[in-house]
C-alpha cells in the first residue's frame, strides 16, 4: 500500500464546476448568435419594412411557421442523435389524406379521424425507427424511402380529390386568436407551447435527454453505460411521426383542404431551420432555444421580404445563403484566428 505514488488521502481534490464565467457560456454560443440575429432582423424590419409593424404580421408569421415549429421539436432530438428524418412532410400529407378520407368519405367523427391520423403518424414513425434502430439501416436512406412511400400512400389514397368539407368549428380553431380579435397569437401556439415545454424538459432536463446527446456523440459508449440506444431512437422517430401527423392535421384545417400533396417539400425547410438553429448534423450538439430562434428567423425574413415585394426566389437565395454562412461561420472564424496567430508569430 505504501507506494511513492500514493496520493495524500487527506486532501481529496475539488474542482470548479465551470472553466468559464456564466456570461461567456451563455453569450458565446451558436444559439445565442441566432437569437441575436433574429432580434436584429426583427427590429430592423419593424423600423424599415412597410406594414411589418402591423398587427397581422406576427399573426400570419405564426400561422405560417407553425408546422415547422412543431416538427422542428422532435427533429432536433432526432438530429442530435445523429439521425435524420426526411419523411416528415410525407407523414403530414398522409395524415391530411387520412383525416379527409376518414371524415368525409367514411363518415368518422372529427376526433376519431384525427386520432386515427395521429396513430398513423405513430405507425409511420415506428416503421422508420424500427428500420433505423433495430435493423440498423442509415436513416438518410430509410427516410428517403419512406418519404416516397408515405407520400405515395397519401396521393394514392386521395387521387385527384381535395376534401374540403370539414366542420367550421374545427377549421377555424387553429387560426382563432388566443386573446381575442386584433391580437397576434393564433390558437395553434397553445399545443406548440405545450410540446415545447415537453421537449425542452425531455432534451435538456431529463435522463432521457442526456442519453440522446450521448448517442449522438458516441452511441457505442452510450450502449456501454446502459443507455438503450435502440429504444431511444425508435421513440424519437415515433415522436417525429406523431408530431408530423399533428402538424398535418393543422395544415389540413388551416387551409381547409385535405390533399395528398399537402406540405410537400416541407422537410427540407424543417431541416434547414434546425441546422440554422445550431444543431450539428453529426449529432451530439444543439439546443432547442436555438432551433426555435432559427425557425422564427426564417419566418421573419420571409415575411419581411414578401412585404418588400420580393418573391420566393429571392427569399430562397437569402435563406440558402444564410444556412451556408451559418455552418461556414465556425471554420471561417477558426481560419481567421489561425492566420492572425501566424501573423503575430512572424
Amino acid at each position, binding site marked *: 500500500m505504501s507506494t511513492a505514488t500514493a496520493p495524500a488521502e487527506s486532501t481529496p481534490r475539488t474542482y470548479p464546476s465551470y472553466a468559464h464565467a456564466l456570461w461567456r457560456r451563455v453569450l458565446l454560443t451558436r444559439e445565442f448568435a441566432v437569437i441575436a440575429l433574429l432580434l436584429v432582423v426583427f427590429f430592423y424590419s419593424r423600423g424599415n419594412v412597410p406594414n411589418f409593424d402591423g398587427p397581422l404580421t406576427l399573426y400570419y408569421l405564426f400561422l405560417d411557421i407553425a408546422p415547422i415549429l412543431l416538427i422542428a421539436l422532435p427533429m432536433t432530438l432526432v438530429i442530435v442523435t445523429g439521425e435524420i428524418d426526411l419523411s416528415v412532410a410525407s407523414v403530414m400529407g398522409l395524415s391530411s389524406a387520412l383525416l379527409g378520407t376518414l371524415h368525409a368519405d367514411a363518415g368518422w367523427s372529427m376526433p376519431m379521424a384525427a386520432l386515427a391520423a395521429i396513430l398513423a403518424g405513430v405507425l409511420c414513425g415506428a416503421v422508420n425507427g424500427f428500420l433505423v434502430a433495430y435493423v440498423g439501416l442509415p436513416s438518410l436512406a430509410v427516410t428517403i424511402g419512406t*418519404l416516397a*412511400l408515405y407520400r405515395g400512400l397519401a396521393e394514392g389514397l386521395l387521387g385527384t380529390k381535395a376534401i374540403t368539407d370539414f366542420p367550421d368549428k374545427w377549421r377555424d380553431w387553429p387560426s382563432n386568436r388566443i386573446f381575442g380579435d386584433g391580437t397576434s397569437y393564433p390558437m395553434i401556439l397553445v399545443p406548440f407551447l405545450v410540446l415545447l415545454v415537453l421537449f425542452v424538459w425531455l432534451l435538456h432536463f431529463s435522463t432521457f435527454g442526456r442519453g440522446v446527446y450521448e448517442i449522438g456523440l458516441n452511441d457505442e459508449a452510450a450502449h456501454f453505460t446502459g443507455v438503450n440506444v435502440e429504444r431511444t431512437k425508435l421513440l424519437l422517430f415515433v415522436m417525429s411521426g406523431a408530431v408530423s401527423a399533428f402538424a398535418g392535421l393543422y395544415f389540413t384545417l388551416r387551409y381547409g383542404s385535405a390533399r395528398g400533396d399537402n406540405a410537400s417539400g416541407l422537410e427540407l425547410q424543417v431541416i434547414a431551420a434546425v441546422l440554422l438553429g445550431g444543431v450539428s*448534423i453529426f449529432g451530439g450538439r444543439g439546443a432547442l432555444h436555438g432551433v426555435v430562434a432559427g425557425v422564427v428567423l426564417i419566418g421573419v425574413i420571409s415575411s419581411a421580404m414578401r412585404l418588400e415585394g420580393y418573391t420566393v426566389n429571392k427569399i*430562397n437565395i437569402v435563406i440558402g445563403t444564410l*444556412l451556408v454562412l451559418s*455552418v461556414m461561420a465556425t471554420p471561417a472564424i477558426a481560419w481567421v484566428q489561425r492566420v492572425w496567430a501566424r501573423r503575430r508569430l512572424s
Partner: protein
Amino acid sequence: MSQLDIAASAQPRLQRALVGLAKSREITVAAVLVVIIALTTFKSDGFLFSSDGWRNLLVSPALLMILAVGQAVVIITRNVDLSVGSTLGLTAYLTGKVFIQWPDLPVPLVFVIGLAFGALLGLVNGVLIAFGRVPAIVITLGTLYVYRGIFLSWAGSDRVNASDFPSSFNELGTKAILTIPVVTIIALVVMGLVGYYLYTARSGREFYAIGSDEDAAKLYGLPVTRRVLLAFVLSGALAGLAGVVYAARYGTVSSGAGLGIELQAVGAAVIGGVAIAGGVGTVWGATIGAVLLITINRALPVWGISDFWQQAVVGALILGAITLDRLYSRRQERLLIAARDLAHAAPTKVGTAS
C-alpha cells in the same frame, strides 16, 4: 491469431469470381430489372418490341443515369449532393440562353459550356465542403435553395422553347445510332469513363478510402481535400451535362426543370448498392438503380396501377433494397462466425492427436 481467414483464399479464381458476381448487388438489381421488363412486355409487347417502346426504355432513364453517376461518386466519399436538381435546371436554362444568343454555336461546344458551368457550381459546393470541413448535406441543401433561387430570378417570366434551339440540337434528344438513342450513349459513356476511373486508377480508389474512414485517410496522407473537391466538381459537371441533355430531350426549359430530382438520384444510387455511409458501391450499380427506378415508373401504368401509387412503389423499392442488403450482410457475418468455429475446431483435433 487471425481466425478469420475462411477458406476464401483457397477457392479457385474462377469460382471466386462467379460467387462474387452472384452476390453482387448490381447483378441482383439488373436481374430484377430484366424480370420487370419481361413481365411488362408479356402484358403489352409494345413495351419492348415497338420501336418507341425500345427507345423509351433506353432513353427515359438517361438523365437520371447521368445524375446517379455523379451522386454515386459523391456518396462513395461519404458526402451527398442535394443541389444537383437546381444545377440541372440552371444549366438547362443557360443552354437555352446560349442558343438564343448565339444560334450558330456548334452543339459540342454547348455541351462543354454546360459541363463547365455545372462544374463551376459543383466547385462552389466542393470548396465550401472540402475547405470549410462542414457537412455536405447542409451546404448542398443551402445551395439547392440558392441555385434554384438564382434560376427563378433569372428565368422569371421567361422560358426557353423548342424553337429556340437549332434543330441539330433538338434532334440529339431523339436521334439514335444503331437503335441506341444518342442521349443513352452519352449516359453510358459517362458511366464507363467514371467507373473505369474509380476502379483502375490509384486516385479513383482514394475516393473509396476517404469514404470508408476520412480520418484514417488524412493520417494516411491521402489528398482528402482535393478528392472531395473533385467529387463535387464531377457531380456538378455531370448535373450540368444532364442539364444540356434535359434541354435537348424536352425542348422546353421552364423554372420547374429538375425540381426534386436530387432525391431520385440519391435513391437510384442507394438502390444500386452505393452505401450512404460511404466507401462502398459502384457507378455501374447506381446506373442500374436509375434504370430500375424509371422503368418501374413506366411499367406501372401498363399494369393498370394508377400513377398516384408510383411514389409508394418507389419508396417500397428503396426500403426493400437497403433492407435486403442488410439481411445479406448479417448472413455474411454469421457465415464468418461459423467459419471461425471451424477454425477453432480444427486445431483441437490436431492437439488431441499429438
